[in-house]
């Protein structure tokens, strides 16, 4: 499964990178979103995959099971998801405004105009 997920992460990075290199700014924003997913999965996977359930201390026990999923990457990824959303929202609104002002979402055309 790790291999499969590694391939999926590679595919997400490849797709995101390709979109990042487009002239159309809206595709760049899509690429940014894909790269965000890819990075979150990368950090999550680096903490090892576990099917033994979430890191929650059961009722009556003092500690979470040693086999449960690693809580640290989860905490990091959770922060990343939320910040990724902030970035995406900002990028999207910026894109909208820029397209309104420039009349195009072609980044090359925007450059020539300025």
């Amino acid at each position, binding site marked *: 499964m790790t291999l499969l997920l590694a391939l999926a992460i590679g595919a997400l990075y490849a797709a995101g990178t390709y979109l990042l290199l487009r002239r159309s700014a*809206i595709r760049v924003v899509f690429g940014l979103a894909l790269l965000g997913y890819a990075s979150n999965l990368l950090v999550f996977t680096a903490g090892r995959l576990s099917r033994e359930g979430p890191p929650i201390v059961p009722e009556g026990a003092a500690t979470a099971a040693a086999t449960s999923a*690693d809580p640290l990457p*989860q905490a990091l990824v959770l922060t990343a998801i939320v910040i990724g959303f902030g970035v995406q929202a900002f990028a999207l609104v910026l894109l909208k405004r820029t397209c309104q002002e420039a009349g195009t979402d072609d980044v090359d055309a925007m450059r020539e105009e300025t």
Partner: protein
Amino acid sequence: MIVAVLSTFAVAALAPLLEKRLGRRAAPLLALVPAGLFVSLARHVPEVSAGGARTDALGWIAELGVSLSFRLDGLSLLMALVVTGVGAVVLLYAGSYMEGHPRRGNLLGYLLAFLAAMLGLVLSDNLVGLFVFWEATSLLSYVLIGFEREKAEVRASALQALLVTGGGGLALLAGFVLLGQAGGSLEIGALAANAEAVKASPLYLPALLLVLLGAFTKSAQVPFHFWLPDAMAAPAPVSTFLHSATMVKAGVFLLARLHPTLGGTPEWTGIVTTVGAATMLTGALLAVGQRDLKRLLAYSTVSALGSLVMLVGVGTPAALAAAMVLLLAHALYKGALFLVAGIVDHETGTRDVASLGGLFRALPVTAVAAAAAAFSMAGLPPLLGFVSKELLYDAALRASPAPLLLVPVAVGSNMLLVAVALSVGWGPFTGRAGETPKAPHEAPAAMWAGPLLLGLGSLAAGLFSGAISPFVSSAAAAALGAPHALTLELWHGFNLVLAKSLATLVVGVALFAARGRIRSLAGSLAPLAAFGPGRLYRAGLAGLVRLAKGTAALLSSGSLRQDLRIVLAATVALAAPLLLTRAVLGAPDALRSVRPLEAVLALLVVAGAVATLLAGSRLAAVVALGVTGFGVALLFLVFGAPDLAMTQFAVETLSVLLFVAVLRRLPRLQSRSAPRARVVDALLAGAVGAVMTGLVLAVHAEPLRSSLAPFFRESSLALAKGRNVVNVILVDFRGLDTLGEITVLGVAALGVWSLVRLRIASRGAGANGGRS
């Protein structure tokens, strides 16, 4: 000694302020600093002459064997006396020479700082300490040569001097490091004691070559001699101080200092003697045809530096003693002549020897000083220059490998130098008065005092050469690494050396008489100068600039996408070999089994990404992106991260809403890139994907050693009273992180809000006062 050097730096920093406050009285006051140092150093002469040495050390980076250790022996005392003595004279002179210049205080400060650096250089007994002062002199020489910074050619000359000596400095540093490796210490004294091991080391030859490169560039040896004449763009006091008495001698000093450690081998003798002899002859040949007073002096200085290097290369006791006497004699007469050239330039407005003549009437004191210095340079008894020339010939005659070659070179060069000396110190003051831009008057006493003092010094040192013998012997002994006793005498009787001295004078005077013809001959040969090593320097510099421009244009095209491609390609190229080999080694502790649901989710994620890639409409792309997002959320859920899944679901829902809200306002998807660019990008993106897959696998190939996971699992309930470990981490253990996250979100929200509200003024709106 340490205190003296460091406090001189401090005074240098205060010099501009002092000049502002005291005006013309500042320079004589500042000159008292080196004068005081001179006197306090001179008190050690009897002790050092008797073979004693003083040391002084201050720990710096003890772990690396670096310390500010100073050593006052014959060699460093001789250099230190030259530096402080000439320094005092030059400071006094500079105050008057730069009268009315708005940055006179700065020049005085730079000169004093240079003096301190030079003093540190000659006193250092640690290679790293010496190197630091060495580089300081290079940097300060850049500032000093380029003092008249408004002129482009002055700046170019300063840069040239800096690049040549600074490049040599880099080689020197490498050489010092190798030397330290070979000898097991960075202390020069310890290295000298360990000389046999150094010479036997395989690092000896590379260390020697690098150190020589540093010394040769600093002391303007062929083929690096070209920077010195060009550095004559500096004001006269700077040329006097740096280019006759001190900085250019640093290379010679270093060779003498390291002679006990590195010298005496066939490589040393062969290279150093040959380069020195070649420089002596080249400098003399180039000097004799010059018309500019300062360039005449500069080329003759190149020649004298060549003589010094040659003598250190020969390395016999007689040769080293000759080098020490020549070093002193040269500092005295060349310092005086540079100052005289400055006075002549200052008073007449020209430095062209062809148009100067009969200045004795207008400048009697300067003329006397000039004549004394010129006669010493020409080697006329009873001046010190005569003594040093006798010793030079004697050493060349008795050089072991090739006296047949060295003697003609030495005699020939000195014949030419006699003509140069007379052209500078005799010609302008005698004969018919020439047409000069300004009517000359005698310079102020502060200006003629220096050359007169140095000229008289040449005379006194020559007359009483017996008295300075023990001191000069101790300097030679330090360079030799063994005691040496030498008695200087004016009169050696009728012998071969005297015959050569006489012949030198006769031919030199004849050459001086024929100077008009020599100059016109040199003028007709002038175009050949374009083929000198200076051409190589200029071509190299231009090439470097072109290379830099080309690299910048290649790597930074101004297009973000292009730059991104380069960054990505470089990352792939650098990371791929390592990551892929590690990934292929396998992932021992990876989860190998695959469950159907998990496989479907992974495929869903990939399918969503591919669909985003291929989507023809905005809506389709947003939907496809949403599929990927929900797929990722479900993967989180499957692998024990319900909190992540929940957050991802919420964010995904919000994202889709957001996209839909602005989608209508966005332009339609269009294909803009050329097919070729798409192929390149697809290949690049594929490579990036492969590298990231490799990264995941490589991470799994390493065993996981996390001490944090057990800590959080165990402490969550005990310390933070929470059962959901991830939540506890976020709000408790890493609560500040979460606060930062919230702040980021707040800032993003502000940005979004202001972008929505922002009305960018259209181009014409500027006229309406910019109201929106």
